[in-house]
């Protein structure tokens, strides 16, 4: 027994080994789970239930002014989802749940066409959650609900009759579907079983993570890919600045005017993952000043986004707002590149050009 302390001292003096043991993968996983993933999905479930309740109230009463409450609850659900949308691993990626929450981008307007068709012929199969679940993903989530609530014909929600009844049942089915998806995902992340166990106990028999650093890679990828999507798709698309096309692309949740707020919530979610989830602390520990530098860039971008009150469609036509949106690109790019650099070194991650995204 008395040799053991000496052995530990020698091990800790070996620089290569010391570096490898410095990054506490398990602590990062624990913090991300407790402080980011669980709170995010808890808020999503609460917002989904609020949506379901408000739709129920609106639909069970005579048409009145309750529709504004439904729209408000819809906005809350969109923002709750946008704050956690960047998590693209675990239960949300099973059973096409991510696409069923929101089918976007929808280049060909499949969602619009399918919802319009279902409304037009008062399709009975979209009026119950169970049957809706088996239908096209574009009919099942927040995008479909947005169409029912605000697109042409939405005034029927305020006029008694079979059209209103059908719309109400369709909305209820979508809300129930969103509640169930949120609940199933949260259940998987709660407690010690389900995906939480997979996430927290990497090892040779783990179906997703063989080593602790693979969990760190999953967290890092979520952060890096989310930043890239916000910058290069969500913002550059409507600006007409994508490499392959200068045509202005529609923004997410453009129909309801929630586009800028949804993108802002995307960035809030990324910042939350970075700060509360623990990436900042780990980056700061390995390169003093850099953790806070990245935080500064993210906050700066967020502040600029929040100062834009126009939805994206109008913002990209407004010189002031357009300038701000373009300027955000630089700190967002830096926040991604610097984090990738430090994490590659500090956590020994394979974040290489092809390793991260080959084919």
């Amino acid at each position, binding site marked *: 027994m008395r040799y053991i302390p000496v052995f530990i001292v020698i091990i800790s003096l070996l620089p290569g080994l010391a570096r490898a043991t410095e990054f506490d993968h398990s602590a990062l996983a624990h913090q991300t789970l407790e402080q980011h993933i669980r709170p995010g999905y808890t808020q999503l479930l609460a917002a989904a239930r609020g949506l379901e309740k408000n739709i129920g109230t609106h639909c069970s009463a005579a048409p009145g002014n309750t529709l504004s409450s439904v729209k408000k609850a819809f906005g809350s659900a969109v923002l709750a989802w946008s704050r956690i949308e960047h998590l693209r691993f675990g239960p949300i990626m099973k059973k096409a749940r991510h696409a069923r929450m929101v089918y976007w981008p929808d280049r060909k307007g499949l969602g619009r066409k399918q919802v319009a068709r279902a409304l037009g012929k008062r399709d009975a199969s979209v009026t119950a959650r169970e049957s809706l679940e088996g239908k096209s993903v574009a009919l099942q989530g927040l995008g479909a609900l947005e169409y029912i609530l605000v697109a042409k014909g939405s005034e029927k929600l305020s006029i008694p009759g079979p059209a209103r009844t059908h719309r109400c049942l369709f909305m209820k089915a979508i809300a129930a579907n969103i509640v169930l998806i949120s609940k199933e995902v949260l259940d998987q992340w709660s407690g010690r079983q389900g995906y939480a166990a997979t996430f927290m106990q990497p090892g040779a028999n783990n179906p997703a993570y063989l080593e602790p650093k693979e969990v760190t890679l999953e967290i890092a990828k979520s952060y890096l890919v989310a930043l890239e999507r916000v910058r290069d798709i969500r913002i550059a698309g409507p600006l007409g600045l994508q*490499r392959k096309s200068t045509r202005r692309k529609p923004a997410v949740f453009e129909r309801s005017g929630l586009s800028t707020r949804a993108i802002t919530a995307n960035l809030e979610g990324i910042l939350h993952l970075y700060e509360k989830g623990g990436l900042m602390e780990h980056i700061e520990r390995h390169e003093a000043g850099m953790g806070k530098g990245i935080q500064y860039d993210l906050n700066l971008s967020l502040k600029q986004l929040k100062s834009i009150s126009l939805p994206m469609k109008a913002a990209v036509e407004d010189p002031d707002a357009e300038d701000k949106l373009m300027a955000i690109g630089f700190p967002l790019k830096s926040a991604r590149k610097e984090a990738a650099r430090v994490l590659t070194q500090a956590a020994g991650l394979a974040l290489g050009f092809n390793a991260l995204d080959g084919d």
Partner: protein
Amino acid sequence: MFAAALRDPDGGYTASIFSVEDGEVSRVALPARGHSFAMRPGAGECIAFARRPGTFAVVFGPGMDRPPLWFAANADRHFYGHGVFSRDGRLLYSTENDFETRRGIIGVRDATNGYRQIDEFASGGVGPHDIALLGDGRVLVVANGGIQTHPDRGREILNLETMAPNLVYIDTQTGEVLERQELPKGLHQLSIRHLTVARGDRVVFGCQYKGPRNEQPNLIGFHKRGEALKLAEIPHSANVRLNGYVGSICADRFGGIVAATSPKGGVAIYFDVSSESFLGLASFADASGAARRKAGGFLLTSGSGRLAWGRSDRTQPLASALAGAWDNHVTRL
């Protein structure tokens, strides 16, 4: 000379033709990330394809006395990044996605007429990726990766539970599927992605596993027409190093040795074709492309911008005249 796509230090994308000794010979700026190349026999030109789900392709090369020629996939199609020419250099076959019907497609274009598309036929599966011509010059072999994607969803796998990869042989004269081979049940998430035709028309393929991480099926397979697909026997410790992912595969100039790379594992791995046996494995960080060298062995490229001369028993670094990150493949011109 070789051709490869790369990401420039300033973040732009380029298709480059270069030699190890003399550096770059020709280059074209690309609008987005490129993937692989098809060499046109006897013409000194090649095609750089967009990476999936891209839609552009560009013809360029030292043999061309005109500016680069661009062409695009048809509406409702995108490229998968691979293609091959007919032996006479007249027709170009490319793997494509008919994403509305989810069908894999082989597009046929006439190189003597501005690469106008003249035909297309079914690839015999979903998500065709790599493609090559057998020795007779008439039969194509296609790796249908089995992964369904849609450009609106980027590179997301839409059919993880129901994937069905296969290896298909197609008669270029008729478009008819001559033979379709699938992996045994239980390996439906083993995406057959890249392939090379080695000596005696032996097809060697490299896979990417999309199933549970704690399952580690062998990722390299051999096939001879008329027989069943056979996964190579790889020492477990070597197979683990591939990290579930093979990015490129290539036979050497004699067709007797095959190299495969894994960027996720940071290794190159070598096999003897006639005995289908494992020869060795070497570390090479973010290993990406592998192409046969005239002097024997392989030119290896990496996402961190390195070049090396890879052989089963040693990896020798080579000076690179180009700055940037090498993309997935390198092809001999």
